[in-house]
């Protein structure tokens, strides 16, 4: 066997000086593009609001923000439905919002309020919105990866064509359980989509200091799982690849692995950009990555095609800003959980056998 690097080396995808130009949107449905632009702008403004509120001391706990990574969740979610079973990790605000979750309930959760997505018991790192297909996110790295496999396996045993979806980062593939999960999903032909959001960093540390190769899709190849590696800041490329892999899984052809290369504009946690504490995270690289902006590249293409205007963008932004302020104010005014929640939610309420 030769020393193929086809699935090992990200090449230009990891080069921040590349892919700055507007997207190629020829032949694409403008309605879909507008919805995707709206989705990405909404997530970005929410995340930026959270960054400011954390900086100003209104949020008590850590927030891991996905500014710059919006294209992935928005691209994937278009091909999901509420009966799918989506699992996330520590940086999952975009995942849950892209499924149509309520901004107000996300804010309320982050503030620890009873009206939050997890009834104020989870905060930013433990989100739940099963009615929208979001089964949960947790901060233990790779913790939910096998859960998504099991939820996909359940869909298969239940005779549906729903799928499990597992969002994780490039750091997670360094956890043994991800290798076990890929193998298990492959051998049992589980309908599950693995979405590796490769932002090149685990916490402070660049992938080059953690792994001998920078493409995580090599693990999919090793486990016999079809994979696609895309520019994660191109919402259309993400969507095309997701559609192919999701369709396969729904047809009973087994798991798929989507590696989407991206970069987070903020640090591992909270509002700072962390160029000072990052190992091999430079201000120069960050500036270049900001040029590979998933929103600006779509917007630029739409404007060039006459499908969008500066005025429309401004009105979208101000509409979203208003919505965010209303949601935030409501969340701030919402009630806290009762003290009884501490003990009442440890176990399911007793309701007889088989409850």
């Amino acid at each position, binding site marked *: 066997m030769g020393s193929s690097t086809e699935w090992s080396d990200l090449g230009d995808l990891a080069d921040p000086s590349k892919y700055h130009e507007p997207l190629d949107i020829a032949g694409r449905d403008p309605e879909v593009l507008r919805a995707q632009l709206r989705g990405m702008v909404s997530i970005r403004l929410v995340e930026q609001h959270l960054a400011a509120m954390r900086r100003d001391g209104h949020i008590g706990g850590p927030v891991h923000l996905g500014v710059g990574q919006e294209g992935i969740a928005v691209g994937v979610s278009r091909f999901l439905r509420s009966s799918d079973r989506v699992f996330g990790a520590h940086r999952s605000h975009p995942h849950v919002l892209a499924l149509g979750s309520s901004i107000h309930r996300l804010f309320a959760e982050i503030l620890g309020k009873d009206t939050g997505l997890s009834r104020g018991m989870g905060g930013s790192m433990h989100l739940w919105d099963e009615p929208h297909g979001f089964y949960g996110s947790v901060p233990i790295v790779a913790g939910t990866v096998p859960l998504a496999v099991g939820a996909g396996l359940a869909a298969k045993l239940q005779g549906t064509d729903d799928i499990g979806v597992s969002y994780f980062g490039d750091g997670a593939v360094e956890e043994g359980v991800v290798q076990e999960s890929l193998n298990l999903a492959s051998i049992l032909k589980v309908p599950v989509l693995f979405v590796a959001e490769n932002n090149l960093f685990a916490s402070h540390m660049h992938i080059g200091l953690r792994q001998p190769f920078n493409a995580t899709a090599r693990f999919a190849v090793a486990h016999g799982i079809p994979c696609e590696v895309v520019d994660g800041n191109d919402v259309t490329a993400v969507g095309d690849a997701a559609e192919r892999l999701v369709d396969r899984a729904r047809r009973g052809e087994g798991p798929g692995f989507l590696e989407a290369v991206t970069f987070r504009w903020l640090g591992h946690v909270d509002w700072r950009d962390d160029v000072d504490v990052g190992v091999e995270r430079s201000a120069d690289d960050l500036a270049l990555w900001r040029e590979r902006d998933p929103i600006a590249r779509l917007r630029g293409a739409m404007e060039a095609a006459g499908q969008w205007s500066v005025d429309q963008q401004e009105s979208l932004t101000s509409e979203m800003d208003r919505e965010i302020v209303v949601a935030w104010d409501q969340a701030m005014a919402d009630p806290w959980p009762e003290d009884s929640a501490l003990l009442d939610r*440890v176990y399911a309420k007793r309701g007889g056998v088989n409850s």
Partner: protein
Amino acid sequence: MAETTQYSYGTAIRAAFEYLLERYPEVFVMGQGLWSPWYVGNSMTDLDKQFGAHRIIDTPVSESACTGAAVGAALAGMKPIVVHPRIDFMVYALDAVVNQAAKWSHMVGGQAHPGVTVRAIINRGGEQGAQHSQALHAWFAHIPGLRVVMPATVADARDLLIASALCADPVVFIDDRWLYDLTAELPPVKELELAAEGPRVLAKGGDVTLVASGYSTQLSLEAREELANKGVGCDVVDLRVLNPLDAEPILASVQKTGRLLVVDGGWRTCGMSAEVLALVAEGLPVGSLHAPPRRVTLPDAPAPTSRVLEKAYYPSRQTVVSAALQLVG
């Protein structure tokens, strides 16, 4: 009168699987060795042939992913039972059990519950040594959100496994290969609500309360016979459900006897025996005890392999009898 059927502890477990798989399409089982007669004694013989390999899944050597997958399947509406033929190997699966399953209900505000059953087997002795011998029930009993079940009787082997699988909460069900040959006549299954089950007084006597779980309960019942011949009467309280632990049956018995001996197949330090002693110390009025409470446990050392050391390592009926006699002496 309902007919009874003869079971061993091992075949009673198999009967529980059969009962569940026949009646509940959402039950499935996964774990290592399930298509082989090797791993789990007679407790799952030919279930794969009876119910299909898609519901009885023999898995890759991946305790962590398989347990996590069972948790995820439970969140998606199934009632999975994941089997670890030796609890030692299940240590690889602690994230799925301790961080995920145990915490899930609480951290999502009580809106979802992973009703997974993790069946782990204690399989020790026979010169197997340190990594084939552990009894880690106290570890799991320490974790809020888990229900921890240790059947000591043939009836509980069947009925508490069924109750565990039907329970909405995550359950760690720990059975013991040293009990597999125990036999009993059982009536037909009556489904129990696990949350309503707890410690039970299996035998009565006025002088000493023996508290135990799993194999230690059988050891205590045997010791009780011998002690009765020596004129010492013992209550035997079988814990059955170690977490959440209902102290009342223990307190009521010790209140009566005034003497407590805890017999536990785990280690001493921070073990189940320490918890029982603490509950009694907290729960009874000063002066309730006629003698300082005692415990019989493993020594705080890993299991040895040499048969001579093994004999010294594990408590025997005689160890229990001697400790009880010291209490009344």
